[in-house]
């Protein structure tokens, strides 16, 4: 137990009390650091072991890969995707805070669903709307308007798919943050008659801005390493990715040195994004207890943002709705009663539950460790370094191609003397947990730090530590977020197709894997039904987990 520090009444609460090594007195900090270091070490081990294996199985060949070209193209694409996700996401979030309408809870549950589906499914949904043979062209032609003047293939298609996947997630995060504005501030603003522009710049913008670095880094990395969408909608090799180059190195050439180098290069570039954001404090100046005061828009503004919301939600949701529609087939009952389906469903549920639990636990412990820096009141420089050390590894998995993850885990198991045919499920669980961790971290970090900022004096003076702090202070206040993170982690690994594709077999099958195999065996009808089921489960889990785990006060999720 750390000794009780003198109560620090100074408003600016600057000076340390923990000496040079405050972490030695803070078990939570140690646990968080340990997790972060393990995660980081695992990444390094995965790449290193591939490099190591290259000496055993080396097969070096020359390559004409232009790394800088790949980097530039991926960075431009990812940067634009972040921009679009932010613009559309903040418009939707702002509109939702200003409007109240029938079906709003459903819209909110829907907002996270796009992100967690296999990207391939969303891309095909997008095509079913905007493609050459899509709904819009069908309607356009039947009413005599002709075809769309543009094609969805190319950079525009990639950006559209990424915006649907990430924009709705950004909207969800932004909305939650805006909901946490103190109701006094909202009432005050309303009473003062702030104009819409003033409301945006004074109230909304600081909130949105504070959420942007963590969210932006996450979205950037997901788009930077996006693979199947880029290839499917890219319209040609100009939009190739690192991942294809690594595929080539591993499969065709069996040049593991190059594979490891490419993975390291991608990771190194991503660190330029990760390091600066990892050190940032979440700006919680404007985040307070929410009483959900609705400052509704009126008059012209109401109609304008209502229309914007409608159009954007339609854009987000239509590719998903059409997946549901196309999967609706009487044969679905035969499918869902088949043994293969039930097995895959069970496996999916186990994997998703396990990896959601791991992701939630890790995210919580990491958030507690960062919050501990506030409780321990450590000096500014060491705080920033520690924050970075704790936060950075969380993102690193997003920056690691899934084929490298799979290959690395495979080699780790082999060198550890494990039966490589049986580690599949553990690898999939761990990999999915770690892939969901950045999202979990972005959701859970700010509220935990907010609690620390708000209550640290009281907590320190009463010496509420460890389990008691968790049970009585933190858990009741972050239960809602925990439930959301669990739902996120659950459906994220439920929808995974990246890792399972490298480990799935006939005996070890998940629903997305079953879907992909159906697609590969001409069974596009089965695939459509499975896609619809996946989407349904994703939306449903965002509805049900907050209900089960979120306690009574889960108004913002219902």
């Amino acid at each position: 137990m750390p000794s009780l520090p003198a109560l620090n009444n100074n408003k600016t609460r600057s000076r340390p009390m923990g000496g040079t090594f405050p972490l030695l007195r803070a078990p939570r900090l140690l646990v968080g650091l340990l997790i972060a270091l393990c995660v980081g070490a695992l990444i390094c081990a995965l790449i290193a072991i591939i490099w190591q294996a290259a000496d055993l199985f080396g097969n070096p060949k020359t390559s004409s890969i232009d790394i800088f070209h790949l980097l530039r193209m991926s960075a431009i694409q990812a940067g634009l995707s972040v921009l679009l996700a932010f613009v559309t996401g903040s418009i939707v979030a702002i509109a939702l805070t200003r409007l109240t309408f029938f079906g709003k809870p459903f819209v909110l549950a829907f907002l996270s669903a796009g992100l967690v589906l296999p990207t391939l499914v969303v891309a095909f949904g997008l095509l079913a709307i905007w493609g050459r043979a899509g709904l819009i062209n069908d309607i356009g032609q039947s009413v005599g308007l002709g075809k769309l003047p543009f094609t969805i293939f190319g950079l525009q298609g990639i950006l559209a798919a990424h915006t649907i996947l990430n924009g709705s997630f950004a909207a969800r995060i932004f909305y939650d943050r805006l909901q946490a504005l103190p109701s006094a501030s909202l009432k005050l603003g309303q009473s003062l008659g702030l104009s819409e522009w003033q409301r945006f710049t004074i109230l909304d913008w600081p909130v949105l801005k504070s959420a942007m670095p963590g969210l932006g880094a996450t979205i950037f990395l997901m788009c930077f390493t996006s693979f199947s969408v880029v290839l499917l909608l890219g319209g040609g090799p100009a939009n190739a990715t690192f991942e294809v180059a690594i595929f080539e190195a591993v499969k065709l050439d069996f040049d593991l040195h190059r594979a490891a180098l490419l993975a390291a290069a991608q990771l190194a570039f991503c660190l330029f994004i990760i390091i600066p954001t990892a050190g940032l404090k979440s700006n919680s100046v404007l985040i307070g207890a929410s009483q959900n005061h609705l400052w509704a828009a009126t008059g012209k503004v109401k109609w304008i943002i209502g229309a914007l919301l409608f159009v954007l939600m339609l854009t987000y949701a239509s590719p998903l709705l059409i997946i549901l529609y196309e999967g609706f087939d009487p044969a679905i009952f035969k499918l869902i009663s088949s043994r293969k389906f039930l097995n895959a469903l069970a496996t999916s549920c186990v994997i998703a539950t396990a990896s959601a639990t791991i992701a939630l636990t890790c995210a919580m412990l990491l958030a507690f460790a960062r919050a501990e820096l506030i409780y321990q009141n450590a000096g500014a420089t060491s705080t920033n370094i520690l924050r970075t050390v704790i936060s950075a590894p969380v993102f690193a998995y997003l920056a690691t191609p899934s084929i490298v993850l799979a290959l690395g885990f495979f080699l780790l198991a082999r060198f550890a003397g494990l039966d490589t045919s049986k580690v599949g499920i553990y690898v999939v669980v761990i990999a999915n947990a770690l892939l969901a961790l950045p999202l979990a971290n972005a959701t859970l970090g700010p509220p935990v730090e907010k609690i620390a900022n708000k209550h640290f004096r009281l907590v320190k003076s009463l010496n509420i530590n460890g389990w008691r702090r968790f049970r009585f202070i933190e858990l009741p206040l972050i239960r809602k977020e925990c439930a959301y993170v669990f739902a996120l982690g659950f459906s994220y690994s439920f929808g995974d197709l990246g890792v399972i594709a490298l480990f799935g077999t006939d005996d070890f099958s998940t629903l997305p894997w079953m879907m992909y195999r159906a697609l590969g065996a001409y069974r596009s009808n089965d695939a459509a039904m499975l896609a619809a089921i996946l989407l349904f489960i994703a939306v449903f889990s965002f509805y049900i987990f907050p209900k089960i785990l979120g306690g009574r006060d889960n108004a913002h999720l219902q």
Partner: protein
Amino acid sequence: MSLKKLTIAALITLVPFASTAVANDKPTLTIYTYDSFASDWGPGPQIKAGFEATCNCIVDFVGAEDAISALRKAQLEGDSTKADIILGLDTSVAAEAKSTELFAAHNTDLSALKLPIDYTSDQFVPFDYGYFAFVYRKSDFPNAPTSFEDLDKAGEDFKFVIQDPRSSTPGLGLVLWAKAAYGDDTAEMWPDLKDHILTVTKGWSESYSLFLDGEADMVLSYTTSPSYHKIAEEDDNYAAAIFDEGHYLQIELAGVLKSSKNQELAQSFMKYLVSQDAQKIIPTTNWMFPVVELEGGLPEGFATPLTKEQTLLLDDQDVGANTKAYIDAFFAGIE
């Protein structure tokens, strides 16, 4: 607390996966193959049943993403690999596979096999073959293209979809096909065609879905793809465009690993694989041509094999040595 319950449930359900011990005295023949071969819809289950009926053994198909992944997996596992056989490699990676020196001689008599062109290898047994081709809907094309050049003349809006040669077998097949048909002239051909390429997908599945959804007019696939629609779906609207230049042949191969402790068993599986019993399973499960003349002939409605004159195939050694250069030239051409 519900959270705790969920964690416990997760742990309990995870345990069975950890312990799938098989208690049996019969030897197990482990075959690494590509996933769709091993899947329910593929030939795997029937072949397994067929061979197990006579061998007093257990056949275990282990699916990997594709055949080359299966080979790489066995390579990485080294001496400790459980694999006895790698099944599904093809002529475009045969040289690469051979160079790993992992494969033993198969000692199977291949003289009775009926392939469009002679294929001899002392390490690999051919078990089926097919031709890469562009598949289209008959209703879209009264006059189907009959050459690569025709693809360029099919109209401005005409789009076809292909696969990345670095991650997909047909994708690589296309590059070799063009090379075999046009030699160095491919450098001039690709730039003409690039405007018609809808996109280059990672795998065959994505491409074929784009085609089925109507996003593309044609898809790079096999001459036997329309047979699926005709036989399994009773839909006669699909056809493969037959090109005057000929079609590139893909022969699928199986090989026994030197490291296998079941050499005899593996060799007898090779013999079974090219027997009438196994070969008659191939057409309507793997949608490829069998390597022997089936006693009852090909199933009703199945595609017919092309003639020797229509068949293109580059030499294994040429492919092994130059694949990278061909792929680079392909990308340079369509960039």
